[in-house]
């Protein structure tokens, strides 16, 4: 079956508990090559936990995870880096895999932070650091990208550009993406499959299906539902860091 060949990671009724409390329970989802699966849900609904289950960071889980690739790029939601380590952006880029200079430069240019290459990680702003994290994750040309709120702290125009980039990467590399995002506009315009979490899967399906779902409406409100169904705007260009416009 072709869908099985494309399968990258599959969760079967997966759950994780900490100190006798379920963080998330009974999640089934799968990510395939070239597809973007987005997790949405309120704070504390288990989105990051689900991502960590899929990545194999949490090992003592309920249910099961089948992972079919080792080429993984991960942008965590929270990352604390110990500043006792003198670490430049360039050192950070080759953290988990050795890359040549061209590959590093290309990834940093794509996320608009090539000029920060020799800066110390500790000296970056939140948004700059987020762009470096994304560059690092895509630079190794992964088969599976797990992006946990990848554009937090990025300025408004940057946010749109980075989401466009994520979509482009998914198409070009044919990699599967598990995305966690609060930006419903983006979710609905670029996502193939939406999983709405609230400690469990409250609903899932295509963006349009989810938008019509009553549980979703209860969770996010009527307005959010309208955003989804109304969203049809498409960009034919991207904005670079210097404010130029590039045609897709």
């Amino acid at each position, binding site marked *: 079956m072709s869908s099985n060949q494309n399968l990258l990671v599959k969760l079967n009724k997966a759950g994780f508990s900490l100190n006798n409390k379920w963080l998330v329970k009974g999640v089934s989802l799968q990510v395939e090559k070239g597809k973007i699966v987005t997790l949405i849900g309120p704070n504390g609904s288990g989105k990051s936990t689900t991502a*960590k289950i899929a*990545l*194999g*960071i949490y090992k003592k889980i309920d249910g099961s995870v089948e992972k079919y690739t*080792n080429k*993984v*790029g*991960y942008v*965590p939601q929270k*990352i*604390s*880096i*110990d500043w*006792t*380590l*003198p*670490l*430049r952006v360039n*050192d*950070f880029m080759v*953290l*988990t*895999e050795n890359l040549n200079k061209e590959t590093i430069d290309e990834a940093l240019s794509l996320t608009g932070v090539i000029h920060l290459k020799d800066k*110390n990680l500790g000296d970056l702003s939140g948004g700059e650091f987020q762009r470096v994290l994304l560059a690092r994750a895509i630079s*190794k040309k992964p088969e599976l990208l*797990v992006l946990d709120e990848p554009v937090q702290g990025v300025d408004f125009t940057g946010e749109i550009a980075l989401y466009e980039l994520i979509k482009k990467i998914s198409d070009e590399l044919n990699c599967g993406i598990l995305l966690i995002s609060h930006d419903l506009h983006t979710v609905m315009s670029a996502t193939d499959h939406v999983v709405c979490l609230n400690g469990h899967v409250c609903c899932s399906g295509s963006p349009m299906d989810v938008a019509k779902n009553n549980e979703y409406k209860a969770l996010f409100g009527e307005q959010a539902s309208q955003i989804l169904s109304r969203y049809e705007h498409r960009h034919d260009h991207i904005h670079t860091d210097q404010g130029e416009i590039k045609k897709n």
Partner: protein
Amino acid sequence: MLDDFFIRALIAGIGVAIVTGPLGCFVIWRRLSYFGDTLSHSALLGVTLAYSMEFNIAFSVFIISSLIALTLIRLQKRTNLPGDALLGLLAHSSLAVGLVVIGFLSFIRFDIMGLLFGDILAVTVDDLLIIWIGGALILLVLKLIWKPLFASTVNYELAEAEGLNPDRAKAIFTILMAAIIAISIKMVGLLLITGMLIIPAAMARNISSSPQKMMMYSIIGGLLSVILGLFSSLEFNTASGPSIIAASLFLFILSLLKIKQSIKLKN
């Protein structure tokens, strides 16, 4: 040339400094200085066992320190005591047991000061072999586990998510710590080994901008400390360990001047 005790001490010290440089950086990055202390305190027990069973000191220390390290890891999983309490518990109890065992071995003459603070007169040609061969092995293994160890030092979850097996790297690094303590105990003495690991690396942190540079400066700092320390030990007839550590402290203070300069630049 190797007949001269001072030349032997110098060669031994240089070997030790080349290995403690990179390892010390990891000790600082991973916040393991008290872990190093615990292992080196337990080394006394290893030494006494070596004497009582006429076994090689370095091997015996390596085995005891590894056992203590593994015990610590198990205790951390099984008890609710905080990490520092466990470290203190193991450090002082193994030191105490070591001293009690020494009491029983009254038929052997012990140079306690030499054990605690190092003794350059005691370095034999065999010790040189152990230091250089053991040191080369330690560096080789460190190179092999570099990627997962360094990545998980920066961020555990990234390393785990991207398939680098950080737990295995951590376990291997623990064994390397036991090994470096085993090979440097004669030179620096068990009370000061952690100083040899930390102080040159701390000095290097002050003046370096990348992990690789920090390792290089840490090795250079260690080498300078050994050379300076051993010469002054010879000159002033002081114990080798404290002299080397005092020399490294001197270098650390010099490196603070560089920090002061760069802070001025920023303002």
